[in-house]
């Protein structure tokens, strides 16, 4: 055991991978095949005596508080390690608000004193779990569905698509149908609706959906039959104008990621953080101390090409 301890001392501490979703948070260690915990993104607030959702905030200070509480719970209840002097891989959407990213960076670097953070976007991480050179990542989250093409680990940002048709859309529709059937508002708990959704909902086949013929919204979320329906819809749509004239793709193939669908991006983070590849892309604490800003694809400081005439004026 003594030898083992010695190795542990020399080795760098195993980094953690953090994926703060709207509904569920995935948290675990790099190099592992599955997150240690998938928990609801909420924490017990003793002042108001109820659970508080991480993403319910009105100001940066409130978000800072929320993140401190959430991370405390994750580190000391679920993963049981010291946050200090440990690297973090943050899995984030490309459309994460800047306020959220910057506040998270502040919480991690200042409050929890982590040694470094790797910021990684979920489409690229999903592609990383496949190893395939060119993939189209359709990620169906709680709020939004994001479609991003990843070619050789580069996201085609101009082709990024997002629609608010995530699990919440199913949720709202289910609540509406139940209320309608009841003849009045039921005020069902979120958990109850989630339970109904997870136990009974599925995505019906295209043929049956055509018979319904009402303009109901498409049904997202990782429900049984979703892939089959998606494939059927795509194969149907390419035969219809305008796609049949402009899009010369007739084949649609689907990948199977080596992870549960809700932890796919997380697994990408775990794979990225395990090797030296992650170490090279880390934003170290002292670097953040010198210049507390994050690289972002929307920021002109980061996305001006080197040959661009404006580049000369930028102090980079």
């Amino acid at each position, binding site marked *: 055991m003594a030898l083992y301890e010695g190795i542990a001392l020399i080795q760098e501490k195993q980094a953690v991978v953090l994926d703060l979703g709207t509904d569920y948070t995935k948290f675990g260690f790099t190099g592992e095949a599955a997150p240690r915990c998938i928990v609801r993104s909420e924490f017990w607030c003793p002042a108001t005596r109820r659970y508080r959702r991480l993403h319910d905030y009105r100001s940066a200070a409130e978000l800072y508080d929320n993140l401190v509480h959430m991370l405390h719970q994750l580190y000391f209840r679920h993963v049981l390690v010291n946050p200090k002097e440990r690297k973090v891989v943050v899995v984030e959407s490309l459309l994460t608000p800047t306020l959220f990213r910057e506040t998270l960076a502040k919480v991690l*670097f200042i409050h929890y004193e982590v040694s470094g953070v790797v910021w990684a976007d979920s489409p690229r991480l999903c592609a990383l779990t496949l190893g*395939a050179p060119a993939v189209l990542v359709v990620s169906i989250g709680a709020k939004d569905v994001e479609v991003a093409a990843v070619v050789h680990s580069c996201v085609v940002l101009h082709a990024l698509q997002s629609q608010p048709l995530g699990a919440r859309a199913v949720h709202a529709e289910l609540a509406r149908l139940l209320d309608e059937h009841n003849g009045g508002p039921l005020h069902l708990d979120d958990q109850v609706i989630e339970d109904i959704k997870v136990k009974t909902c599925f995505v019906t086949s295209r043929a049956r959906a055509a018979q319904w013929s009402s303009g109901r919204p498409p049904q997202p979320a990782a429900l049984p039959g979703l892939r089959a329906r998606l494939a059927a819809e795509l194969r149907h749509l390419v035969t219809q104008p305008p796609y049949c004239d402009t899009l010369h793709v007739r084949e649609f193939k689907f990948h199977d990621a080596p992870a549960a669908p809700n932890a796919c991006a997380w697994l990408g983070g775990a794979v990225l953080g395990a090797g030296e590849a992650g170490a090279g892309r880390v934003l170290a604490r002292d670097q953040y*101390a010198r210049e507390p800003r994050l690289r972002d694809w929307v920021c002109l400081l980061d996305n001006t090409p080197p040959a661009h005439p404006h580049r000369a004026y930028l102090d980079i």
Partner: protein
Amino acid sequence: MAYLTQPDYVKYICSCGQLKPITSLYFCRHCLKIRCGFCICHEVDSHYCANCLENMPSSEARLKKNRCSSCFDCPSCFHTLSTRATMAQPRQVVQDPAAGGDTKVESKQPKKMYYLSCFNCRWTSRDVGIPDQPVASGGWPERTNPHAARVNQLLEYYKAIALQEKQEKIERERKKFNIRGKYITLTDKTGLTGAMARNIAGLPSSESSSSAIASFVPSQAKEEVEELPEDIFTKEVNLNQITSMPQRLASPEWQPSSVSRLHPLAKLLSVKRSQRCRACDHNLTKPEYNPGSIKFKIELLAYYHVPEVKIISHEPVKPGGKSALLLKLTNPTGHEMQLRLLQPEDIPPPEEKEEPKSIEKSLERSLNLEKDTSSLKPMEVVCPPAATSRVRAPDATLTLAQRDDAAEYDDDAQHDTNDIIMWRKSNKLALRLEVETAEGAAGGAAAAALVALQYSYRNTVPPAAAAAQPRDHTLYTTVLLDLGTVSSN
């Protein structure tokens, strides 16, 4: 008890600006400042199982993925599973008499077999086909992640790529500075080849890394997708057979969708935490190692060092009016305490400490300047909380006796009362104060008053080697009193 069951009527302002009741505050005896859970550093101290109260060294906990090896949770309702014993008749060898064999009845003793059962929801390990175990604890089949092999391939592949990336970088650097210096490198002198150097450095040889890249098969996309089963439209839904979301997420590796795939969950360990002051790195609390003990080795709670303020009662607060306020002050320390009530704005700003002028210190400071961690200061709440009322602080210094546990038993209150002091009893003191409310206070709004306390504190930390530190200090703290709501008339 009042602190557990009732709302926090009296809140202290922590040195970081947070408002907290005295029971959730710490007091650093080295910085002489109040600290709270927000501005201290939490650390994992020891791992233990909350069910069997067994300690686990942290290295072992890491190996076992923070799970207890002998306790299990119910996968259905998350209650702790119990081990049940049954007498099992060992299976007798049935021989066919027609085959001419003599039927031997094996006279084996019935064997004790164990299975796991939940006393809350009646789930048992037999429900999902886990065979009974011959030993009471441990030996339960462990499942491996179905994707483990593929994930390991991925890890190896990306490790190899990272290595290649690194080597290419080194290669490029070398090309950049290709001028051989006058120094003989190690490889020249000893005739070490690159492969050997890599071997010495513990890096895998270049062949193996390239083989990992070559042998990697990217995920193959498939045209066919899993169709929705046809009978889904006709089969009756049995909700008891489908797992709920919490049941699925309790085992993130498998996430079973059917109840028949639920497996016992090894109990997650808990940790004892120790707390450390961020400013001086001293421990504020340190728990005892024994998981069964709830005591602390170090316990610097504000409750033991800072005068406690409680509201006995108060008159309703009216806009522009005066109302009486009865406060109880308690001295929790073992020394006599001099106490004064002040207005919050009368607290003198913390004086800058004169740094001892030594070379080492100035060197240290210049080094710190170089690092420049000023932007890494924790977030502090600077604006004081809004108060609708002011407490008319009496211009008198009150003396509170030290805490004396024996004094609990004599119940005759001392009667040196005056117009401010209502009564006095050992280390406690009741004050009659007046609260002035602002004219513009809106009716129905929450009424609150800020009052500052100046108190003397005797530091009992053994002084550092021969340093003549002052033992008596004058400290300040600010308290926010919750006075209900402003009455509207």
